[in-house]
């Protein structure tokens, strides 16, 4: 059984189709990252799974529970951190978390310790008695994700969990997400930050215009780009042109260019298999390798490859 499964899921806002016949699954105890620009349908999908929105058509289940017909049961399974932390302006962070923990059924005996640990870990302890309206953007965002870390649900949804947060804060949030997974939670993260996706994802689903374009592990997605890996070589060879020809005939080579007789740039698929073949060829050609630098494609390149667009969009989600 999948932790999350959608079939033919469609959501329409007036004339706009936010999700188009989406088939999507998450395995148990997996971190699935939804990657897509603004307006790709990420937040809509999260809100449907969290039972806040109803789909126009199609089917969705969380841990085998139907999100449309058994929405209260679904909400007892999951916890969500929203994209923007808004709302309880006149409440204090500690009170907000205490309320959230009690409503979500965190045992009373554990509540205060858990809240203190999460607030300390996310560097919010000193701000625990400030009013929400006096928190900075980054603090408010950390408080938003802290709700999920205090709740520790079986299925956690985090919408752009580290946006507006500095690098140090991002790493703390990512570490907490990893810890949540180690404790057995299944996690769905929506983001348009490549680094966040690469750090967290067991698998990535690329969403574009409400459709799932591709879904796989980060490594496989990168490998699937033909010629996506770039190997820069500096070589001392007796006959550079013949070596260039030989490298061009290696399995996995897409293109070879050279800026001088000793510097080559090879566009290859799966550099980890190509490099050993290249060293054999150099050895047979009596060429001496002075340096090698391998560059992998980023998830941004993956997105560009599969959608023909850059990741940063302009429309609203």
């Amino acid at each position, binding site marked *: 059984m999948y932790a999350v499964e959608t079939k033919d899921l469609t959501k329409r806002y007036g004339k706009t189709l936010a999700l188009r016949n989406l088939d999507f699954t998450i395995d148990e105890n997996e971190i699935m990252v939804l990657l897509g620009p603004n307006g790709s349908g990420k937040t809509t999908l999260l809100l449907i799974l969290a039972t806040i929105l109803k789909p126009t058509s199609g089917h969705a289940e969380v841990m085998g529970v139907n999100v449309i017909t058994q929405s209260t049961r679904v909400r007892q399974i999951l916890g969500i951190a*929203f994209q923007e932390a808004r*709302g309880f302006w006149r409440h204090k962070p500690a009170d907000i978390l205490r309320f959230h923990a009690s409503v979500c059924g965190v045992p009373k005996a554990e509540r205060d310790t858990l809240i203190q640990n999460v607030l300390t870990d996310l560097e919010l302890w000193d701000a625990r008695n400030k009013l929400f309206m006096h928190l900075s953007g980054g603090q408010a965002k950390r408080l938003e994700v802290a709700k999920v870390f205090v709740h520790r649900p079986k299925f956690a949804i985090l919408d752009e969990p580290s946006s507006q947060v500095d690098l140090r804060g991002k790493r703390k949030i990512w570490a907490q997400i990893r810890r949540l997974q180690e404790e057995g939670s299944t996690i769905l993260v929506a983001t348009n930050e490549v680094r966040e996706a690469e750090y967290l994802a067991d698998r990535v689903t690329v969403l574009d215009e409400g459709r799932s374009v591709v879904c796989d592990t980060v490594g496989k997605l990168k490998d699937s780009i033909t010629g996506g890996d770039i190997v820069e070589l500096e070589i001392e060879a007796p006959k550079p042109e013949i070596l260039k020809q030989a490298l061009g005939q290696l399995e996995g080579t897409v293109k070879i260019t050279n800026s001088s007789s000793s510097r080559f740039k090879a566009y290859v698929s799966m550099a980890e298999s190509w490099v050993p073949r290249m060293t054999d060829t150099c050895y047979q050609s009596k060429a001496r390798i002075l340096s090698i630098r391998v560059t992998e494609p980023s998830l941004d390149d993956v997105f560009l490859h599969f959608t023909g667009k850059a990741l940063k969009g302009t429309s609203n989600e």
Partner: protein
Amino acid sequence: MSNILRLVWFDLKPELKPPVWIVAEWAVFSVQVGIYGAMISQLVTGIGNYSQFFAVGLVIMITFDMGSHMGRHFVEHAHEGRLPYLLSLPISRSKLFLAITLQGGTELALMLAVPLTVTLLIIGNLTWISVIACVLTLFLLGFGVAGLMLALSFIAFKSSDLYTAIVTGLSTIIIRFSTVLYPFIFLPPQYASAAAFSPLTYGSDLIRFFLGFDPSILLNPYYAVSVVVALAISTLGLGLFLVQRLVEGVKSA
């Protein structure tokens, strides 16, 4: 039930620490009754002690304001991103609406505690039944007005400015064209026909009936009971139905 009470208390707590808004409302009421009410009662003749009539009118206005506030509060929840959070909590939709209603009812009770007590003391010579009937009528009227504002909230999802303009205009008309401050039988014909459409006309006349005002200057109480009950059930039902449909369409978190 405990989650409903938690939700009510969580939302209410900031209003009470400190309870500035509530105390300010009590102070305004006291000034209105003590100074303006005392002066105006010297000018008005034909309905006995006008300051008593006036005090009941002020209580009705507070009830209307609170009912209106409950409806607007819900719309603000949606606009401020608080509603999606509430909708994501592990409680059923009916319990969530019950919590919102209970919170509104509690705020109304707090807001009315002093004004109603003062009014009852001014009028004096009352029975427990009349006081309970009066309180029930006020709550029914409050929920009816809240339902009306909820039913109008579909406008707010399109334009909050338009919603504010319509609600402000409607509030002015509903209060002014009613028997809140003037008895129905003394109203000019055109004014009386407009007042017949205001729910506050029936609410205020019914409360005055329960508090022992001269029935000859009031509307038929059976008619008034029917209108107030029908208003509460229909507008609250319609409001909740519309809001449940509209909330589903709130896209942004």
